[in-house]
């Protein structure tokens, strides 16, 4: 019964997202393709954060760092005339993984508030690094003249083609995180989240598991960064601003921690609301803020917990 509802939920979700471009094409509203593509890129970032926050209990307040590293990897390589996506994207993912490994190696030894502050501090360092390097635009950021090239296989300047690429990568990421969480590796991660001392006393030191998950999450978010740079054709240090980290975290919490659909639902609701309210008043944050607070108070399990079939088993 439950499995049935889940199947319907995901089928509807995939169908709706896949049919969006032709539908809005008929309605002559191309803006929605841009909006949902952005939603899906952030859903990748949120899904990667969910791996460590939702399943691992690691409240990283610096996840936007990898969005920035992924974005700058594309931007900087493009600046030097290297436009091949085959080069840019692996560099974006690999660099993000390496930085995550380094940040994780230091921060995961700490716990609770200290972990949050250390991850935040590292990301602020990267943010100010982005501001200080004038060559890559400094504070103003830098335009990417040519989007990532994939040997003519796909043209990322075409909004619909890039939409479908993001769609596939997003569902791929969600599925990957789902599989990791249910693997034996994920079980240990979840066990350590619920009771760290107990998982030690049964023979597992959580550190290496957490560090591995942290690195995977960074790598996946680096992919989101590469996509975001191609989406906006522009990179700025704002990719790494701490409010961005907070936004990604909020998507996870609003959508439902430790659920597969949560990050996507959270990204969808947050960004759509943001866009709607911004079109209505420039003080949209005054309205969105209280709405978010209320949603957390009343939907403790997140959106995934109240939509039939969206929750995990």
């Amino acid at each position, binding site marked *: 019964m439950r499995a049935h509802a889940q199947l319907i939920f995901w089928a509807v979700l995939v169908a709706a997202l896949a049919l969006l471009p032709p539908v809005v094409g008929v309605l002559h509203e191309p803006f929605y393709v841009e909006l949902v593509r952005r939603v899906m890129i952030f859903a990748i970032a949120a899904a990667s954060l969910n791996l460590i926050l939702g399943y691992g209990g690691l409240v990283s307040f610096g996840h936007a760092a990898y969005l920035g590293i992924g974005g700058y990897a594309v931007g900087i390589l493009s600046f030097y005339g290297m436009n091949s996506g085959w080069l840019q994207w692996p560099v974006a993912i690999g660099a993000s993984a390496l930085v995550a490994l380094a940040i994780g190696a230091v921060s995961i030894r700490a716990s609770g508030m200290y972990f949050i502050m250390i991850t935040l501090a590292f990301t602020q360092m990267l943010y100010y690094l982005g501001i200080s390097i004038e060559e890559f635009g400094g504070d103003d950021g830098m335009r990417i003249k040519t989007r990532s090239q994939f040997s003519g296989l796909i043209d990322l300047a075409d909004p619909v083609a890039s939409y479908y690429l993001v769609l596939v990568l997003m569902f791929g990421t969600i599925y990957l995180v789902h599989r990791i969480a249910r693997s*034996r590796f994920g*079980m*240990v991660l*979840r*066990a350590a*989240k*619920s*009771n760290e*001392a*107990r*998982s*030690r*006393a*049964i*023979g*597992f*030191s959580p550190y290496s598991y957490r560090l591995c998950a942290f690195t995977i999450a960074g790598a996946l978010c680096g992919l989101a960064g590469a996509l975001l740079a191609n989406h906006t054709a522009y990179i700025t240090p704002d990719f790494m601003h701490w409010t961005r980290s907070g936004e990604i975290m909020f998507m996870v919490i609003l959508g439902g921690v*430790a659920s597969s659909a949560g990050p996507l639902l959270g990204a969808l609701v947050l960004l759509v609301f943001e866009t709607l309210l911004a079109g209505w008043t420039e003080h949209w944050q005054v309205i969105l803020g209280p709405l978010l607070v209320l949603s957390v108070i009343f939907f403790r399990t997140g959106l995934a917990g109240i939509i039939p079939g969206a929750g995990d*088993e």
Partner: protein
Amino acid sequence: MLRVEGLETAYGLSQVLFGVSFSIEAGQVVTLLGRNGMGKTTTVLSIMGVVPARRGTIEFDGKPIRGLPSYRVAQAGIGLVPEGRQIFPNLTVRENLVATAANRGGSSDPWTLERVFDLFPGLRERHRSFGNQLSGGEQQMLAIGRALMTNPRLLILDEATEGLAPLIQADIYRSIVRLKTEGLSILMIDKNLKALSVIADGHYVLEKGRVVWSGDSAALSGNDEVKHKYLGV
């Protein structure tokens, strides 16, 4: 198999253990007895390295294990079923069993899901339920199963029947007897003297952080003074 000598442990300034000594031979079932607050659980936590011991010797298979982090002690082959069960609520029954399973000692007949379900048939039906959806008895069985899945050579049961209905307690005791006949060494903390004197080979009575009496089941049954003075029965 396990030898504890002169174990001293303190929480901050308040010392709890004042030189606890006892030992367990392979295949034996041994109990730690005593009223609440006498240091039974602290002894177990000191062995496991959860609480650091100040002084004394803890040897497992002739190797010193005092001062090792708890996951190393567990990896050496000691499986703890902690007081309060402490199963993972966000994992299913099956996941609780599989997540930390290991066969580090290279047992020729390792524990499997099948064997655990065979020992506790009630868990088989509930293998998809989450840890927090189980009854107290089921949680206890799961906690024992989880420890067995690490293929320990010494199993430590801290109050494994506390707060359970008599019928469920009987189930647990039966399973412990079965584990004993399969040759597993077991250290038990429990309050049910009647059941323990049937199951266990030896007993150690703790009083204010010291072993004040030790002997076999026959000696304990015949010693009303010890039972009255230290165990309150």
